[in-house]
């Protein structure tokens, strides 16, 4: 007779331990700062900024990455070589360095250019988030460019020949057959990379963007509490990463794998 999985002794022990740990954290640690920072709106602002920065740079990065991937997979040499170099450079240097180069570098350059100072965009260019979004997008695009280059190349040749045999124009082949199948092939990697992007968003706090990490830093500086804000932060990110992972799992299930049998 097989024992159902949920009565396994060690699993039950782990569950009890986890419950005890949650109880211990809830009762023994200090959480009195939570309502305070909820009421003054900092936590909500942090949540909003983290989600917005993630969403914008994911979208922009994926678009640019698709172009980079296409340029490397089917583009002529004068498009393929620069995007290759771009991907190598961006993937070979730390994101923090790129972020600081863009924020401090461009940030020190812009005030010296009169037409930028006098334009309407200047209000935004004095803040950190345009630079944060720009550098996250540029870096993410380099990673996605590599992923999509590989995916575009591994779409089965028969599919493209069939598309051609149907008399599709090159752009239609790309739109209806090549790109959709490449994205589907790349979905597991794209999902992993989206979580990597999410996990690199706290870096934007170093250029004074008020994201979740910035808020937890603020709490730690105000109250001298060491662990609790960090634990709360970690739980938040695990929660977000779970949502992203679920979204990608749902996307993967939407298309049955058999369609790639060719």
């Amino acid at each position, binding site marked *: 007779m097989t024992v159902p999985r949920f009565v*396994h002794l*060690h*699993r039950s022990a*782990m569950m009890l331990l986890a419950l005890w740990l949650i109880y211990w954290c809830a009762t023994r640690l200090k959480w009195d700062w939570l309502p305070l920072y909820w009421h003054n709106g900092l936590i909500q602002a942090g949540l909003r900024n983290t989600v917005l920065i993630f969403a914008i740079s994911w979208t922009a990065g994926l678009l640019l990455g698709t172009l980079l991937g296409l340029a490397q997979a089917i583009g002529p040499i004068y498009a393929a070589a620069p995007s290759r170099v771009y991907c*190598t*450079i961006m*993937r*070979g*240097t*730390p*994101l*923090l*360095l*790129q972020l*600081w*180069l863009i924020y*401090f*570098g461009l940030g*020190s350059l812009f005030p010296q250019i009169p037409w930028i100072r006098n334009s309407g965009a200047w209000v935004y260019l004095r803040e950190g988030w345009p630079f944060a979004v720009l550098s996250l997008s540029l870096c993410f695009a380099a990673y996605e460019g590599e992923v999509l280059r590989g995916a575009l190349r591994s779409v089965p040749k028969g599919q493209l020949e069939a598309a051609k045999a149907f008399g599709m124009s090159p752009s239609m082949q790309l739109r209806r057959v090549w790109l959709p199948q490449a994205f589907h092939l790349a979905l597991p990697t794209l999902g992993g990379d989206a*979580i990597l992007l*999410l*996990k*690199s*968003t*706290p*870096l934007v706090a*170093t250029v004074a963007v008020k994201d979740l*990490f910035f808020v937890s830093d603020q709490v730690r500086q105000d109250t001298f509490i*060491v*662990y609790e804000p*960090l*634990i709360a*932060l*970690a739980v938040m*990110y*695990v929660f977000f*990463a*779970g949502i992203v992972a679920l979204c990608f799992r749902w996307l993967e299930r939407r298309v049955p794998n058999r369609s790639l049998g060719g």
Partner: protein
Amino acid sequence: MIENIAAYLDHVVSQGILSLSPPGWGGALLVGLLHTITIVSGAYIIAIVLGILGATGKIYGGPLIRDWLSVYTTLIRAVPELVLILILFYAVPKIINDLLVASGLARIGFSPTVVGMLVLGVVIGAYMTEIFRGAIIAVSRGQTEAALAFGMSTYHRAVRITLPQMLANALPGMANLWLSATKDTALLAVIGFNELTLVTKQAAGSTRAFFTFFIASGCLYLLVSVLSTQLFAWAERRARRGAPEIRRGKV
């Protein structure tokens, strides 16, 4: 355009902000690079030890060990590195000292470099565990069975058969991990470790030559990544020597 760049480079050299001796920051950048490489090498060695232990536990361990290791790898991979580094930065020295005090020994002080290595080692150890687990599983079963038939002990089977063959499978993943580890060291700049990215920021801030310094240290990071890519490619060729070439159908 080219004259402008040449003039700028000439300006940089004559002003000497990149020169190696103290008025210039070149020497400080190289020291920062040395710190980065030291921390990442130490962390990598810790991660390899953790990875081998973790992968062995995940494959051969009992249900309890497997569950605990899953908690370790899942949690570490789901939380941002920056947050983990902050938590571990406070927690690791405290836990070690508590253990030392509990076993009747004196507390020890940790140098920032050692803390950096430990923290980063624990983080990339989780990734290393997964890489090694996949690589060990990929070693053909006939090999370990043959070793068993030869009457090798568990230790000899691990050291002579599984680990050397696993290495060839693990090296591509290990190379990726090394590259991301060198870049993760930059995160230590946020908590004030004196490594390349932080030195760069200080140099750029005090000379106001942002592009010069950030591009210069970008080149240093690229140099490290290009050189280590070559090194790992060589190591993989060496680890695969004598193995049948599958790709060209010459099995």
